[in-house]
C-alpha cells in the first residue's frame, strides 16, 4: 500500500471509472448502475486506510505527493491529508457510495451519463480536500462545478435550468475574487521568498502585515461563505436542493457544503489570522443570524426538500459559529457538525427521494399517517429526524453541543442566541415529522405506498449505524480530528502574534502599487 500513491488513486480512480462508464454502449443502462456501484464501492474501500493509517498526532500532512506541475510558475501537484481532510474524504467516498446506491431506481433515463458525472464529481471533491497547492485547489474547486451543474440541469425537477445556472454563477462569482487574491498572494510570496510557489506551506510560512490581510481574507471568505452557504448568500441553496435529483441533493448537502467550512479552516483562517480576529465577531453574528433565520424559514416550508435545505443553512451556521469561536471545543464541534450534518441531511434527502419516487410529490400536505402504511420507512425517518435535531445519543448532538460550548467560552451572547436554533430545529423537524408520519391518512394514494425495498434498507443501515456510533462513541472521530484542529489553532495564533509583532520588518508590499512603478520596461 505504501508504494501506491493512495491519494492520487483516490482522485483519479473515479475519474477513470467515469470515462469508462460513459463509453459503455448505449442501452446498457442497467449494467451502468452496477458498474457505478462497484466503482463507488471500490473507491470507498480504497479510502478506508484514511481511517486507520492516518496518524492523528503526526505533524504536518501525510500520504504526501509532490510532483512539479507547471514548474515555471511554481505550481505543483501537491496532495496531502491530515485528520480533518481525511475524515471529510471518508465522508465523501461513503456518501457517494450511498448516493449511487440510492439512485438505482430513481434515474431512469441516461443513467450512464448520470453515474459518470457523479463519479467525476467525486474525483473533484476528493481533489479539493486533498490538494495543498492553491492553484490546484482552485482548479478542483471550480472544475467540480461542471458535473454538479449538469447533474442538476439535466436530471433535475421543473425549474432545473434556473437552479443549475444559479448554482454555477453564484459559486463562480464568489470564487473569481479568490482567484485574484491567490494570484496577488502568489506575487507577494514570490517577492518575499524569491521562489515562485503556490504551495500552501509556503503561504503558511509567510508573515503578513495585519493591514494587508484584510482584503485577502475577505476575498477568500466571500468565496467560502457562498459555498457554506452563509446568510445572506444562501439563496442558491434552496433552489439547487429542490431541483437537484436525489443523489445530487445528497452529495450537495453531504459534501459540497462542507467545502466552504473546510476552506475557512484550511485556507482563510490560518493564512490571514489578524484579519480573522477583526472579522470573527461579524462572521459569528452572521452565522447566528443564519442559524435562526434558516430554522425560522424552514418552519414554514410546504416542500420537504426545501425544509431540509433551509435546515442545512441553519446547521451550517453552527459550523461557522464553531470555527469563529476559535477554541478547541468550537473547532471540534464544527467538524463534528460537518460530519453529522453530512450523514443526517444526506439521509434526509434520500428519505425524501424515497417517498418522491413512490408518490411524485414532496409537499408535506400530501402526506400524513405514513406510519401505518410504511412502518420501516417511518422508523428510519424518525431516527434521522431526531439525529438532525441533535437528540443526545445521536450524532447531531455531539457537534452542536461542542459548538455551543466553544461559543460560550468565547462569548456568552453567541451561545445564548445560537441555542435558540436548537429549539427551533426541534420545532420544525418534529412538526414536519408529525404532519408526514402521524395522524390519519388524508390521501387515499398513500395507502398504496410500498415500504422500503431490500436495497433501500441496505442503503439506510450503515447510515443508522453511523448516526448512533457518532452519537454514543464520538471519541474515535474526535481523536482523529483533534490534533489537526489543534495545529490549525496553534498556527493561526502563532501567525497572528508573529505578524502583529514584526509588523515593521515585513516586506512593504501593498496591494495597490501604482502601475507606473512597475512598467518602465525598455528594450
Amino acid at each position, binding site marked *: 500500500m505504501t508504494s501506491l500513491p493512495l491519494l492520487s488513486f483516490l482522485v483519479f480512480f473515479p475519474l477513470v471509472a467515469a470515462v469508462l462508464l460513459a463509453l459503455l454502449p448505449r442501452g446498457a443502462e442497467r449494467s451502468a448502475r452496477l458498474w457505478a456501484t462497484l466503482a463507488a464501492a471500490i473507491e470507498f474501500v480504497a479510502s478506508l486506510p484514511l481511517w486507520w493509517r492516518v496518524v492523528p498526532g503526526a505533524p504536518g500532512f501525510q500520504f504526501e505527493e509532490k510532483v512539479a506541475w507547471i514548474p515555471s510558475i511554481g505550481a505543483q501537484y501537491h496532495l496531502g491529508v491530515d485528520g480533518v481532510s481525511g475524515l471529510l474524504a471518508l465522508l465523501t467516498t461513503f456518501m457517494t457510495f450511498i448516493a449511487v446506491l440510492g439512485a438505482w431506481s430513481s434515474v431512469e433515463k441516461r443513467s450512464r451519463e448520470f453515474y459518470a458525472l457523479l463519479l467525476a464529481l467525486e474525483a473533484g471533491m476528493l481533489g479539493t480536500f486533498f490538494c495543498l497547492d492553491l492553484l490546484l485547489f482552485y482548479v478542483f474547486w471550480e472544475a467540480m462545478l461542471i458535473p454538479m451543474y449538469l447533474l442538476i440541469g439535466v436530471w433535475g425537477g421543473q425549474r432545473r435550468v434556473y437552479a443549475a445556472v444559479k448554482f454555477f454563477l453564484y459559486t463562480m462569482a464568489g470564487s473569481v475574487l479568490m*482567484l485574484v487574491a491567490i494570484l*496577488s498572494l502568489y*506575487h507577494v510570496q514570490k517577492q518575499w521568498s524569491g521562489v515562485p510557489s503556490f504551495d500552501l506551506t509556503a503561504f503558511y510560512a509567510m508573515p503578513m502585515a495585519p493591514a494587508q490581510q484584510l482584503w485577502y481574507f475577505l476575498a477568500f471568505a466571500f468565496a467560502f461563505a457562498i459555498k457554506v452557504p452563509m446568510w445572506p448568500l444562501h439563496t442558491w441553496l434552496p433552489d439547487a436542493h429542490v431541483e437537484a435529483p436525489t443523489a445530487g441533493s445528497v452529495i450537495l448537502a453531504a459534501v459540497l457544503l462542507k467545502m466552504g467550512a473546510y476552506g475557512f479552516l484550511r485556507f482563510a483562517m490560518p493564512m490571514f489570522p489578524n484579519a480573522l480576529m477583526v472579522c470573527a465577531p461579524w462572521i459569528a453574528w452572521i452565522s447566528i443570524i443564519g442559524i435562526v433565520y434558516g430554522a425560522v424559514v424552514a418552519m414554514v416550508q410546504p416542500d420537504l426538500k426545501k425544509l431540509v435545505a433551509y435546515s442545512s443553512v441553519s446547521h451550517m451556521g453552527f459550523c461557522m459559529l464553531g470555527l469563529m469561536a476559535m477554541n478547541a471545543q468550537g473547532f471540534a464541534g464544527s467538524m463534528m457538525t460537518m460530519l453529522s450534518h453530512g450523514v443526517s441531511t444526506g439521509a434526509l434527502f434520500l428519505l425524501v427521494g424515497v417517498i418522491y419516487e413512490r408518490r411524485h410529490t414532496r409537499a408535506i400536505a400530501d402526506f400524513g399517517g405514513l406510519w401505518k402504511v410504511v412502518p420501516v420507512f417511518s422508523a428510519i425517518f424518525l431516527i434521522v429526524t431526531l439525529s438532525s435535531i441533535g437528540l443526545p445519543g445521536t450524532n447531531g448532538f455531539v457537534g452542536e453541543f461542542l459548538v455551543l460550548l466553544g461559543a460560550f467560552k468565547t462569548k456568552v451572547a453567541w451561545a445564548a442566541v445560537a441555542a435558540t436554533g436548537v429549539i427551533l430545529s426541534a420545532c420544525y423537524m418534529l412538526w414536519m415529522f408529525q404532519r408526514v408520519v402521524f395522524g390519519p391518512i388524508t390521501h387515499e394514494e398513500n395507502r398504496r405506498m410500498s415500504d422500503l425495498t431490500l436495497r433501500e434498507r441496505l442503503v439506510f443501515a450503515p447510515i443508522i449505524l453511523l448516526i448512533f456510533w457518532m452519537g454514543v462513541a464520538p471519541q474515535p472521530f474526535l481523536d482523529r480530528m483533534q490534533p489537526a484542529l489543534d495545529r490549525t489553532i496553534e498556527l493561526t495564533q502563532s501567525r497572528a502574534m508573529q505578524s502583529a509583532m514584526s509588523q515593521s520588518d515585513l516586506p512593504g508590499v501593498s496591494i495597490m502599487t501604482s502601475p507606473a512603478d512597475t512598467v518602465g520596461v525598455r528594450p
Partner: protein
Amino acid sequence: MNVVPQPLFLAVDWWALGPVLALTAGSLVLLLLEFIPPRPNDNRGPIVALLALAAAAYAVWRVRDEKRALFEGMFVHDGLTVLFTLLFCAIGAVAVLISWDYAKRTRIGLPEYYVLLLTSVLGMIVMAASNDLITIFLGLELMSLSLYVMVGFRRNQLESNEAALKYFLLGAFASGFLLYGIALLYGGTGTTNLQGIGDFLGDSPIGRNPLVLAGGLLVLTGFLFKVAAVPFHMWTPDAYQGAPTSVTGFMSAGAKAAGFAALLRILLRALPTFAEEWQPLLAMVAMLTMTVGNVTALLQNNLKRMLAYSSIAHAGYLLVALVAGGTEGAAAAVFYLATYAAMSLGAFTLLTMMGRGSDEPVLVSDLAGLGFRKPLLGLALTLFMVSLGGIPPTAGFMGKVLVFGAAVKAGLIWPLVVVGVLNSVVSVYYYLRVTVALYMRAPEGEPVELSLNAPAVLALVLTAAATLWWGLQAQGLWLAAQRSVSGLL
C-alpha cells in the same frame, strides 16, 4: 535588439523568409492550376493550401532558434516571429480543414477562396515579423483585403454582402487612421523603424512632442479597430454573422492574433517611453471592451453573433495583458492568443458542421438535444464553451490565470483585474446557455442535421486536444511564450 543586419543573404535568411515564399508560391500555384479545368469534386484547392502552410511552418521551424534581421531591419526573424508564424500556419491549416466540406456544401469552394486564405495568412505573418511601420501596414492590408473578399464570398447572399461592405468601409477608415498615424510618427521621429522610433523617443529631449503623441494615438486606434476593441467594435458582429462560418472562425483566431502581434511590437518596442500615456488609455479600453462585449453577448440568440461579442470580450482580456506589460504581460498575451485560437476555432468548427446543403442553423435553440444525440460533438462544444468561459481544467482558465497574474503583478488589481474577473462571471452565463441548449432542452420540431466530414472532425480533434492539453499542462506553451518575447524587451 542584438541582431546586426548583415549585407549578405545567408541560407538561414532564406529559411527565415521561407514562410513568405512558400505561401506566395502556394497561392500562385493555386491560381495557375485554374488553367487546367478541375474535375468535379476534386480537392486540389485545400490540398495545395495545406502543403503550402506545412512548407511555411517547416521552414520557420528549421531555423527556430536563430535571430536575424532582414531587409535593413524591416523584417525580423526572432522568437516572436517564429511562434506567431507557427500559430498562423496552424490557424490557416485548421481553417482549410473546416472549409474542405463546408465550402463545397455552400458553393464557395472556388480556388480563389484558398488563394485568399493563403494570402491573408501571409499578411498575418508579415505583420508579426515586421519591425517597421511600413511593412506592418503592408501585412495588415494584405490580410485585411483578403479578408474583406472572403467575408463577402457568399456572393448571392445579402447578409454576406452587407458584412463585407461594412467590414471594408470601416476597415478602410481604420487603415486611414493607421496610415495617418504612421505619417505623424515618421514626421515626429524621422524613421519608420520601430527600433529607431524607440531609440529616438528614449534619447531625445524633444521626443514627447504632440506630433508623436497624436501619431501614436492614431496608430493605436487603427489596431484597436482590427482587434475589435470597444468603441471600434461595431463591424464585428455583422461581419462575423454575415461571413461564411469557416471564414468567421479563421478571422476570429487569425486576425486577432495578428493585430495583437503587431501591437505588441509597436507598444513594447517603439512606444515604451509613452507607457504612462497609453497604459491608462488601454486600461480604460480594456475594461470597456470586456464589459460591452460580455454584456451584449448575453442578449444574442445567434451563435455566430454571440461568439462575435465573445471575441470582443476576449480582446478585452488580451488588452489587460498588454496593459500589464513587461515580459510577463507580453508572454501572457501570446499564451492567451494561442489558447484563444484553439478554443474559438474549435467552436466555429462545430458550427460549420451544422446543417446540410447551404442552410446554416446557427441559433442557440438549434443546438437543443444535440448533446445526447451526438455525445462526442456535445462534449467538444461543452469543452470549448467551458474554456471560453475560463473554467478549469481548460486552456481558457490557464490563459486567464496568466493574464490576470501578470496584471496583478503590475499592481493593477483595482479596478482592472477585478472588472476582468467579474466579467468572466458574466460571460459564463452565455456560455452556459449553450450547454443548457445542448443537454437540458428538447429539440422543437426537426432536429438539426449535421454534416460530419473527416477534415472537420480532424480539426475538431486537434482544437479540442489543444484546449484540453494546455489546460492540464500549460508548462510547454508558457515556456514557448516566454521565450518568444524574451528578445522583445
